[in-house]
């Protein structure tokens, strides 16, 4: 897998970056991917921020995992974010494990992987690192930036830290700070990893192994939180997994168990356990109002960016209320903001699946913003 990672697009960020933990880093890799072409007027660039377990491979086939890109439902030729028309850019977050600077990268000082010597990074650090990519690609102002879940949190941070770098923004199913429930769920994931003896305080890479059991449980926790109660009941109910009756054992009798096990154990093939620790921590630390001394209004002041906040009715991880709080803050600071709640049973995962109403809204907004941005550029 590491061999393959050498053949993907990477930017070496030479500019020093002061992390929130006060450590300065420079000359670090930022892996990214692009889709479509940047047009002559450079008015068609769309930046996508990925979520916790995502990566830069938004569309097409991920060259490392050989699976479809994580947002193939929304991004690609003739999709809502049409790559025939738009130039889509996505970078792997720092702390991640798809080629960007993260805990499994080699620390030049010790000549071995960082493991827990990797600094605790924040959403702001991730965003600052990714912003360097715009210069590299020659993009002065984005047409749109978007992202769901942690991607949406990065987007809100991006707008607060780099005001007016994007003409429009679509934060999806996210919030301006992590709730107690979300921190608790992340802690559950971390504890599962750390309870696996293979984890060995993050030094498992020395033996070239992964704490698979812990990481798989961490993923299962996540998966439960991405679905809705109703969606889960409809999909699985009490259906049994390829059997007609209980087996009076602890094997996966129920389909829902089998599903979780499958999701958990296929995840360990593509993700690094330490990365989960670092990225979930960054999410927990995220609190925009704290950054701006308690004032969210301050975070979004003087915004010319046109926002569309989207929430999903059955999302209990980032509820409609939390998304509306973002809208209220944007409103209070005088920003141009739209808001739509998509009625669906598909829970937090709605933005990743083929949810027609969501995709139509995404497309409608983006296309109308493109017209406006072109006109603005002409003037």
């Amino acid at each position: 897998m590491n061999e393959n990672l050498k053949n993907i697009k990477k930017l070496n960020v030479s500019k020093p970056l002061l992390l929130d933990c006060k450590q300065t880093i420079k000359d670090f890799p930022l892996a990214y991917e692009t889709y479509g072409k940047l047009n002559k007027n450079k008015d068609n660039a769309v930046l996508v921020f990925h979520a916790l377990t995502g990566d830069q491979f938004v569309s097409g086939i991920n060259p490392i995992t050989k699976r479809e890109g994580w947002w193939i439902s929304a991004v690609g030729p003739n999709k809502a974010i049409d790559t025939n028309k738009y130039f889509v850019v996505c970078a792997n977050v720092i702390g991640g494990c798809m080629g960007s600077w993260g805990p499994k990268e080699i620390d030049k000082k010790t000549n071995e992987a960082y493991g827990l010597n990797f600094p605790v990074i924040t959403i702001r650090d991730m965003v600052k690192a990714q912003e360097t990519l715009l210069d590299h690609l020659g993009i002065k102002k984005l047409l749109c930036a978007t992202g769901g879940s942690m991607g949406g949190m990065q987007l809100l941070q991006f707008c607060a830290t780099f005001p007016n770098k994007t003409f429009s923004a679509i934060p999806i199913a996210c919030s301006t700070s992590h709730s107690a429930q979300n921190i608790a769920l992340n802690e559950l994931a971390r504890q599962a990893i750390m309870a696996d003896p293979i984890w060995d305080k993050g030094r498992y890479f020395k033996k070239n192994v992964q704490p698979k059991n812990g990481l798989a449980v961490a993923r299962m926790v996540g998966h439960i939180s991405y679905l809705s109660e109703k969606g889960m009941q409809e999909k699985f109910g009490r259906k049994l997994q390829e059997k007609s009756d209980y087996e009076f054992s602890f094997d996966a009798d129920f389909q829902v168990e089998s599903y979780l096990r499958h999701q958990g154990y296929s995840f360990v093939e593509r993700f690094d356990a330490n990365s989960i620790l670092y990225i979930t921590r960054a999410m927990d630390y995220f609190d925009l109002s704290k950054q701006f001394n308690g004032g969210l209004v301050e975070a979004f002041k003087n915004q010319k960016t046109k926002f569309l906040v989207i929430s999903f009715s059955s999302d209990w991880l980032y509820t409609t209320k939390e998304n509306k709080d973002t809208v209220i803050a944007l409103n209070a600071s005088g920003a141009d903001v739209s808001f739509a709640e998509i009625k669906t049973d598909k829970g937090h995962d709605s933005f990743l699946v083929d949810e027609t109403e969501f995709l139509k809204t995404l497309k409608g907004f983006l296309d109308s913003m493109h017209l406006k941005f072109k006109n603005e550029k002409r003037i």
Partner: protein
Amino acid sequence: MKKEFKVIADLLPNDVRVLDVGCGDGSLMNLLIKEKNIRVRGLELVEENVKKCIYKGLSVIEGNAETELHQFPSQSFDFVILSQTLQAFYNPEKVLKDLLRIGKSVIISIPNFGYWKVRTSLLFFGKMPITKNLPNNWYNTPNLHMCTIKDMYDFCLSKNIKINKIIGINENKISKIYRSNLEIKNLFSKIGIFQLS
């Protein structure tokens, strides 16, 4: 409907900030942007309408004016518009107070229950009136608090709400309403438009 929007547009100066509460599919918002270069935002309850606005590139927030007006800061808009919806709220008085808080000026329109066709319908047929402006039956109408232009006039006086202008609309005419012609206009206007502050 078009006539009403035209009257509302004519009441507004160019380049102001407007909040359109219950903006529907964004027809009025579009008109205000095109004709008056107005910076307009909408609040709309119906999901389908919200999407129509978004596709048109209009700024719209999905939400209920009855419960969600608090999100708009005081005096953050030059004008707040509420077109033919006041009568549908549980608590129109509270909503109107909120509108007056948010906008420096408020424009509301009401379907006039004092219109002669409405009056005759009840008088001669003894049934709740069904007209173009009031198309529903008594059991499925969203209108909880029907009133007349005169009722609204009295209401504003009793609540110390300043009436800057009243305009009456019917098929043939758009006319200004004053205290002196209130009785007659209340009989012949289908819709009343009030500019308040």
